[in-house]
């Protein structure tokens, strides 16, 4: 007999995908990222009317720069927090350590081939992703690259008294072009790719709630992280410190 509870979406098994640290880091990146974008784009396109209007909202060029730097510092702090957390995590689980975010981690390449075969209609087998899909790796390592491109040049521009002891002016000028162009890339990338992946695609619209409570239902897990789900359920291989299964929720009236 069919389980009377199985029809209720709130009774689906839910996996704790992100713990509080993951969610804090996501918040600490995305909130200041939006502030940096809003205060940074007017600086790049200063001659536009909307740029002037935004600048006056933030209190002119000086206020704009203050909030830009403020948000940048928050991103830096978040990155330090994340690196520290990751280091402690790695030390804690050093005896049985797998880092699923690395592009060469198990199953990534197979899933990538599966993904393109599936999307191009060459195969009907849905790609089985591990804990992180190639898309998520792309996003994650893009932030790393962005921190060197944008964060690095940002620090050099913020402290010219330090910078000009070691670097010539043409280097700082070129690095500033990299700063704003990389920023434009990041903004466009986030608001097309990332927003499609976690907001606009039909499975998630209006959004995937992992960033908020860290939870993902078994159905979504199957689609988005099939390999990880297999390891969790069939092989009972729980990655160290990750993928805790929350107890089944039953519909209260079912008894």
């Amino acid at each position, binding site marked *: 007999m069919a389980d009377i509870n199985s029809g209720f979406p709130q009774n689906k098994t839910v996996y704790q995908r992100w713990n509080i640290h993951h969610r804090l880091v996501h918040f600490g990146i995305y909130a200041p990222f939006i502030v940096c974008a809003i205060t940074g784009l007017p600086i790049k396109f200063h001659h536009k009317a909307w740029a002037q209007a935004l600048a006056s909202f933030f209190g002119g060029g000086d206020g704009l*720069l203050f909030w830009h730097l403020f948000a940048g510092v928050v991103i830096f702090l978040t990155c330090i927090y994340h690196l520290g957390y990751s280091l402690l995590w790695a030390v804690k689980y050093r005896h049985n350590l797998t880092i699923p975010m690395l592009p060469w981690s198990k199953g990534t390449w197979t899933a990538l081939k599966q993904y393109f075969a599936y*999307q191009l209609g060459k195969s009907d087998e849905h790609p089985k992703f591990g804990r992180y899909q190639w898309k998520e790796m792309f996003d994650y390592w893009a932030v790393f690259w962005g921190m060197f491109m944008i964060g690095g040049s940002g620090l050099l521009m913020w402290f010219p008294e330090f910078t000009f002891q070691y670097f010539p002016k*043409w280097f700082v*000028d070129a690095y500033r072009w990299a700063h704003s*162009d990389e920023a434009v890339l990041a903004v466009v990338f986030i608001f097309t790719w990332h927003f499609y992946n976690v907001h606009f695609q039909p499975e998630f619209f209006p959004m995937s709630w992992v960033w908020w409570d860290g939870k993902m239902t078994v159905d979504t897990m199957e689609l988005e992280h099939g390999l990880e789900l297999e390891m969790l359920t069939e092989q009972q291989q729980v990655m160290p410190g990750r993928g805790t299964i929350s107890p089944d929720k039953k519909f209260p009236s079912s008894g």
Partner: protein
Amino acid sequence: MGTNKSCTAKTLVIAALVAVICLAFGPAAFAEDLLQKAVIINEGCLRCHAAQGLNANFDGKTVSLYVDKAKYEVSMHGTMPCTYCHTNITDYPHTGALKGKALVAQVNGECQRCHKDVVPDYNKSVHGQVNSAEGRQNAFCSDCHGIHNIYKKEVPEAAINHNQVPHTCGNCHEELLEQYELDFHAKAVLLGGQEAASCVSCHGSHNILGPEEKESMVSTENTPKTCAKCHLFPLENFAKGKMHYSLTPTGDGAVSFWVLIVFSWLVIACISFVLICILLELRRKWADVNKPGSH
């Protein structure tokens, strides 16, 4: 002796009183007189010149003779009679009127009557030197300060306001303005910032000199000191390389130019790739939904 003494005292008191009256009310009376004169004279001038579209045809060129009354009256010279600067206008029709460059030169010559303190600096500066080709100074007072719209630099509309200075200088130095706009100081200034350097912050104003002059604020020798006005301590590297560069494939801005090109293509490539992926995914989802038996 007693009467003589009191007589001297009386004289002294009267002299003091006269002095006080003259000093206290004299200038005021004079100013009042000038103000009255200005009101009467300017009313006469503006009867014609406040009319929008008042034009004259000088040597085949249509020249506007219109003066914005509202702007002039709140300007620094708004309470002065027109003839204070236009000294050669004494009658109507204006028999002594000058045209074109001669008019500009004459009026600018009159500035020095009151603003004597600026003259020595200005005459030494690159703007004050007479350009032998044109037979006039490189830049007149009015080129930077405006004509009937001269305001203190604290007024946002003033041509010499911190945020307006780049545009004012750019009227002549077009290429430099274009180059300056690439600079971060420019971004802050043009977005209304008060802290970053405008043109005059580094180049000076009345004492402006070309970078090849030793006393110039932007000579190789003085540049570090000039930067240190804001940037804590002078650094030799501040003076190395060109401050103003153009985004061209060769020259001072070459590295910046190529970085810009590489990143533009990186943006195009990345975004094209992910857009193709999105379209592929949506196409696949659409195909799955329309498959028979999918519902």
